[in-house]
């Protein structure tokens, strides 16, 4: 097969800033042509859940029917449109989306029927072979007042290489609840792209628990549109970037409905010569009266050779809102070190304990014990020489 190199603009942030900082978007060059399929066969799905394949056209039609309406006048601050034109917005943006559309054979539509409360978590494991380049695309549609916990895991052998592009679109009907847990434990030569777009209707709630632990290059993008009144988004993300790895994270919460609520918490650990770029945006649109948005990123720096970039952004065109963002970047907090020391724990040990604690705190929300154990083991291994 002929080598096909391609350049994509990935994870463009909503509101551009100084180009010199190199935080506006990432240009990704490489051969992404698909060589492998990742099997997603489900056995014995509980009643109320169905899964079937859609053609590209069917998927587009489905998504545009659920996409939020974008008012042209909404964006007045900058000279560039705030978001890229995408029928159904995602965090990694249009070029990644176009590539998925061109590459994915089909789109898997995973539906939960109206009113169905699925108590047991559904596990969706994706295992990648060494050298595999795969694109998977799925739509998760949770019906009115239905609820689901979906646990997606991608992994490979520790030293494997390849490309994984996972495109997940989520549509939550009125009162629907989805806990989406994504864990990435790919091998040390992988390029991982995880692109998420979500639309939330009245009273819908999306909880996203995400752990980005493996891969050499990691791109994570999320765009959640809180269209409905009193819709809620909770994001808890933990990431571990060590050795020569790099990570690009772009998470946007667009608050359109009244009384929407966004809580986003990011906990990261950087070691080695790792480079990480994080942009988290709370975007209060006109009409989002009574909404609240809160965002926090805590980054623990374990080495002197890291590059950490953080952009916590608030965009606001509504008066009656409360927004807050915070970031804390550095070594362990002095008060914390002293507390630990006063119990006889030295700095190095305290640091090791805190790294594990931070990531475990995120993992603790995953309701699958065996996966939590795998995550613990993966973290231990990541710090081995």
């Amino acid at each position: 097969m002929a080598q096909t190199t391609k350049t994509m603009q990935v994870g463009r942030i909503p509101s551009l800033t100084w180009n010199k900082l190199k935080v506006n978007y990432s240009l990704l060059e490489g051969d992404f042509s698909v060589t492998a399929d990742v099997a997603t066969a489900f056995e014995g799905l509980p009643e109320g859940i169905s899964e079937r394949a859609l053609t590209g056209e069917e998927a587009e039609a489905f998504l545009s029917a659920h996409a939020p309406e974008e008012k042209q006048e909404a964006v007045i601050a900058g000279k560039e449109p705030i978001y890229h034109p995408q029928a159904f917005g995602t965090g990694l943006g249009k070029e990644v989306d176009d590539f998925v559309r061109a590459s994915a054979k089909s789109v898997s539509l995973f539906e939960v029927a109206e009113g169905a409360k699925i108590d047991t978590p559904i596990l969706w494991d994706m295992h990648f072979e060494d050298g595999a380049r795969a694109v998977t695309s799925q739509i998760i549609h949770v019906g009115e007042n239905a609820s689901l916990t979906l646990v997606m895991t991608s992994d490979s052998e520790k030293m494997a290489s390849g490309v994984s592009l996972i495109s997940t679109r989520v549509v939550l009907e009125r009162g629907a609840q989805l806990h989406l847990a994504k864990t990435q434990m790919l091998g040390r030569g992988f390029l991982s792209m995880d692109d998420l777009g979500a639309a939330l209707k009245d009273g819908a709630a999306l909880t996203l628990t995400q752990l980005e632990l493996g891969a050499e290059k990691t791109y994570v993008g999320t765009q959640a549109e809180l269209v409905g009144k009193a819709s809620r988004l909770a994001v808890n993300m933990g990431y571990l970037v060590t050795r020569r790895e790099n990570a690009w994270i772009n998470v946007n919460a667009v608050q359109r409905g009244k009384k929407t609520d966004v809580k986003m918490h990011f906990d990261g650990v950087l070691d080695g010569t790792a480079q990480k770029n994080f942009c988290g945006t709370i975007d209060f649109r006109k009409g989002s009266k009574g909404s609240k948005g809160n965002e926090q990123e805590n980054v623990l720096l374990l080495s002197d050779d890291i590059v950490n970039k953080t952009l916590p952004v608030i965009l606001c065109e509504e008066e009656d809102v409360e927004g807050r963002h915070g970031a804390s970047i550095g070594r362990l907090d002095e008060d914390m070190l002293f507390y630990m020391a006063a119990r006889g724990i030295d700095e190095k040990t305290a640091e090791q304990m805190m790294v594990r604690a931070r990531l475990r705190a995120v993992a603790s929300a995953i309701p699958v014990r065996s996966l939590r154990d795998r995550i613990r083991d993966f973290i231990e291994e990541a710090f081995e020489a």
Partner: protein
Amino acid sequence: MSEKQNIQEVDRSLYDFKDDESKGFFRMKEGLTRDIVEQISEEKHDPKWMHDFRLKSLEIYNNTEVPNWGPPIDGLDMDRISSYVRSKSNMKGNWDEVPEEIKNTFEKLGIPQAERESLAGVGAQYDSELVYHNVKDEVAKSGVIYTDMESALTGDYADLVQQTFMHLVPPTDHKFAALHGAVWSGGSFVYVPKGVKVDIPLQSYFRLNAKGAGQFEHTLIIVDEGADLHFIEGCSAPKYNVANLHAGCVELYVRKGARLRYSTIENWSKNMYNLNTKRALVEEGGRMEWVSGSFGSHVSYLYPTTILKGDHSHCEFTGITFAGNGQNLDTGAKMIHIGEDTSSYINTKSISKDGGVSTYRSSIVIEKTAKRAKSSVDCASLMLDDISRSDTIPAMDVRTGDADVGHEAKIGRISDEAVFYLMSRGITESEARAMIVSGFADPVSKELPLEYAAEMNNLIKLEMEGM
């Protein structure tokens, strides 16, 4: 509070008186060409290096794109901006010799009075040239140099000027820095010798009275080792219905163990494009303090930058931005930590009202060499209605594990409860709201000398009227 209220209220019309330009004014024709730049250079009797520098800058200007971020500047057409306007008057050292009309303008702005009462020296720029410059005797005796930029180019400190002029802000920095390099005119040069502490402030006042003109003053301040200075900059202009442009440049050198406080109250008229660049370089143990109030302008791009080069150097930035109807003010600060144990602190407030757009934009860069650097940012935004807009776009770039960087930002509205509480004590709603906004701005106003804090409070009151 009561002291501030006692000071006479300022009327917006105060800033709005205009000139009859038919009388004795020299005005460069609009647009920006090599000929025009040559002509400015000739008018100003530039040394050769400056003449060449201007042409080089023009070339850079022509080859640089406008930024792809920030507020729109489509309304700014360089072909309609005159880059050089001066009255037929040389610079004076005595207010009595300043032409009547110009003197009246500054009288109305209270500059001569402030000079008598509370300043160590004053420079007053009118359109493109300084018309007045004076330093109190005792300050001059201590060796402090405070002069116009043109005199500095040929005076005793000519070499120092040549070694520092646009070194902190090179014309390649961005398009409007290049523009400044090509057509700059006026501004001040200050040199404070080693160990000299100037205990009352120096002030420059910039007034752009001409219609459809640009002001491109250059301020160069060198505070030598162990010295101390407070410099105040004020800006205003009358309102015209065509665009005016301000692309000044401020370069500040804070040497070892020195301290410089640079305070600005900017109240350009609301047809002004304020594309100003300010930068400070701080050596070992030096301290830079910025106090910045942005009230005027149609569009602003303003991010004073501090390079903390020396170990243990420190910078504090305190700023407030009030964007009202028709204003899109993009303001903030940049900190670049290079030295070890450097520290910076940013505290800003922004207020949006009547469809105004305010953006807080910042970048904190901690270089690999900046071991144990600390930086903390605290910004708060207040939305006064639902037709305005307020964005917060801070960036942090950390390249050493040894840093400690924190950021906190909040956005919200005036709390109904607070308004109710004040009203229950007999205060009207509009007064209550104005009081709350003043309280919000208080951390900034208390950093200013009393007269300026009063002016700022009055500006807030003016902006809050009619709510």
